[in-house]
């Protein structure tokens, strides 16, 4: 008898959308076993990570603030992933977006005007798009894999950030600390709820999700992206240009990552510092897949991941769970999702042993 995997003709819808939930359930179960074996109260810790933040209303703004950049970036990435365009460098575009916006902020230092913030946001969209355009053009013109180039440009962006905050953009009154001036009120994305970190970037992210959903499911453009991803040959016959799709999806995902960077920089940091990049651009890849590359799914995926981040901090104080242990949770989610997906796309066939012919 032997076991083999056989591709399903069409994965069931239920299985397709159930897989992320299954993956989270498996993560919780594995987490429980793991934490118990490590000598912690496993059940309680998992409860604190996944459930407790949802039960405490004072944690909700935190979840929304944490989810916002993840969802914004992942929404953009998911568009590209649908078209088989693999932008792995969202982290770099996120940084360049923040750098571009900060550039506007520093240039308008000591000016109070309502147009500064929109200009900063526009600059961040452009900055992110330009950073993504480099791998896009390299792919279209020279067939260079965008996976490598976009990833490598992340490190370039990081050095750019370090250079600017240490050199030309360093706060002259900041005791030589490598950080820019604090943004003025006119340069800060306004707060939405006093006493929390909730800011207007959160509803903006929600709006981006809605627009993306509309474009992807209700317009020819969205259809084109999906066809190029699913059946490149058919797309070509249908007159859809693959190159144009690559360019467009890269630019959109870069622009959204850039916008997310600016919002995070302005609303929660209030300045650009070397500590600004915290790998949201990479975490967003998990979010995109957890969300099945669907804008609404991405929204839910982002909230789930953000919840686990907030919950991880609760588990640290309540159960004294080390931070590294909680870091496993996020990795396990992607691991189990990929694992479960194997069974969604394939089915297991248990075939009796066929006597082999002499070889």
């Amino acid at each position, binding site marked *: 008898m032997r076991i083999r995997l056989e591709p399903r003709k069409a994965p069931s819808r239920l299985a397709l959308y159930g897989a992320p939930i299954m993956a989270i359930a498996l993560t919780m179960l594995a987490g429980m076993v793991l934490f118990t074996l490590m000598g912690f109260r496993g059940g309680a810790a998992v409860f604190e990570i996944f459930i407790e933040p*949802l*039960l*405490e*209303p*004072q*944690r*909700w*703004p*935190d*979840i*929304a*603030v*944490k989810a916002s950049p993840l969802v914004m970036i992942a929404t953009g990435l998911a568009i590209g992933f649908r078209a088989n365009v693999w932008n792995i460098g969202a982290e770099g575009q996120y940084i360049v977006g923040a750098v571009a916006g900060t550039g506007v902020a520093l240039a308008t230092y000591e000016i109070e005007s309502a147009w500064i913030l929109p200009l900063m946001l526009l600059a961040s969209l452009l900055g992110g798009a330009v950073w993504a355009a480099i791998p896009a053009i390299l792919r279209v013109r020279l067939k260079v894999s965008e996976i490598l180039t976009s990833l490598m440009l992340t490190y370039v962006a990081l050095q750019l950030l*370090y250079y600017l905050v*240490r050199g030309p953009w360093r706060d002259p009154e900041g*005791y*030589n*600390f*490598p950080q820019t001036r*604090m943004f003025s009120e006119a340069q800060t994305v306004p707060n*939405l*709820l006093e*006493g*929390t*970190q*909730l800011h207007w970037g*959160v*509803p903006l992210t*929600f709006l981006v999700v809605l627009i993306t959903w509309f474009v992807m499911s209700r317009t020819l453009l969205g259809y084109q992206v999906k066809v190029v991803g699913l059946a490149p040959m058919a797309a070509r016959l249908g007159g859809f240009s693959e190159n144009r799709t690559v360019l467009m999806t890269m630019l959109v995902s870069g622009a959204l990552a850039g916008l997310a960077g600016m919002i*995070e920089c302005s609303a*929660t*940091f*209030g*300045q650009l*510092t*070397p*500590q*600004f990049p*915290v790998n949201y651009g990479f975490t967003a890849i998990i979010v995109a897949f957890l969300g099945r590359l669907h804008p609404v799914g991405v*929204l*839910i995926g982002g*909230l789930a991941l953000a919840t686990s981040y*907030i919950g991880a*901090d*609760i588990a*640290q*104080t309540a159960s*004294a769970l*080390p*931070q*590294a242990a909680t870091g496993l949770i996020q990795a396990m989610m992607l691991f189990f999702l990929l694992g479960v997906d194997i069974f969604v796309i394939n089915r297991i066939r248990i075939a009796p042993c066929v006597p082999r012919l002499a070889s």
Partner: protein
Amino acid sequence: MAVILDRRTLLAGAGASAALPFLGAPAHAADPLKVGFIYVGPVGDFGYTHAHDVARKKTQDFYADKIKTNYVENVPEGPDAERVLRQLAQEGNALIFATSFGFMNATAKVAKALPKVYFEHATGYMRGPNLATYNARFYEGRAVIGTIAGMMSKTGVGGYVASFPIPEVVMGINCFTLAARKVNPKFQTKVLWLSTWYDPAKEADAAKALADQGADIITQHTDSPAPLQVCEQKGLYGFGQASDMSSIAPKAHLTAIVDNWAPYYIGRVKAVMDGTWKTGDTWWGLKQDTVQIAPYNAAMPDNVKKAADDVKNGIIAGTLHPVTGPVTDNKGTQRLKDGEKANDEMLEKMDWYVEGVQS
């Protein structure tokens, strides 16, 4: 879960939470005083964060069941710090220690928003009615190990694995170099900047690069023992950072600058218990035992041990100041006249390097 983005629901939720504070953890008069800590690194870093956590445990043991300490480790310096600080306050911590410089803006913001909670920020300069700052005169320890380095180095080149070029780090580099040049006027210090407090892989790479550039003794202002491990492998000498790291590199580890925060923490907890807590700035050093010198390695000749002890005892007695003129910076400008001593203000704003520093 999309409901959390609805402002009305959110406000209602926030209202409900205000009416029912700290669900599941009602505050009773007899409850132990809750004291919170946030750390920038993991408690297992064997360095800076580890030293804070040792002090936390000592404080907990000192007061036994009269207090309950808890901590969150690996908190990124940025909006996450703000969120975690709020979380700790909402969980009922009456006194919160924010143990890294990068938590400054977040701590100042949260302290303003929560005037009934006492905050203590390490190594920063922002204070408020409920926000005190504290630091240790690590630079005094740097003078001791600089003396040792100057006498033990054969090549006359010391390597310095550094984090950020902030005054705290710069004054350490200067004191180390001044002390080393006092015993070996040709001594040079090569500095590598890593832009991180804790990254064992980067720290090890930096130590290797410094060794390749001729440094035969390496010290660090980053928090992991990785540079020491490199010294151990290469047969070079090094120094422990913040904790006694001799168990990790028994041959290379000459001594360490040990941070002993426990007396300060115990005192501040008592002030809260007695209702006498006041804001202020505390800067203790060798004299108050906040900065300690770990036991010397047996490989150190007696004259080196004696020279190191002389510096240490001179600083404790107040007869020796690590930054005493004549001091010239590495661009040739005289900074201190003969016999002139650097005051605290000069140290706290230090953004220049003494002669002999190659940065």
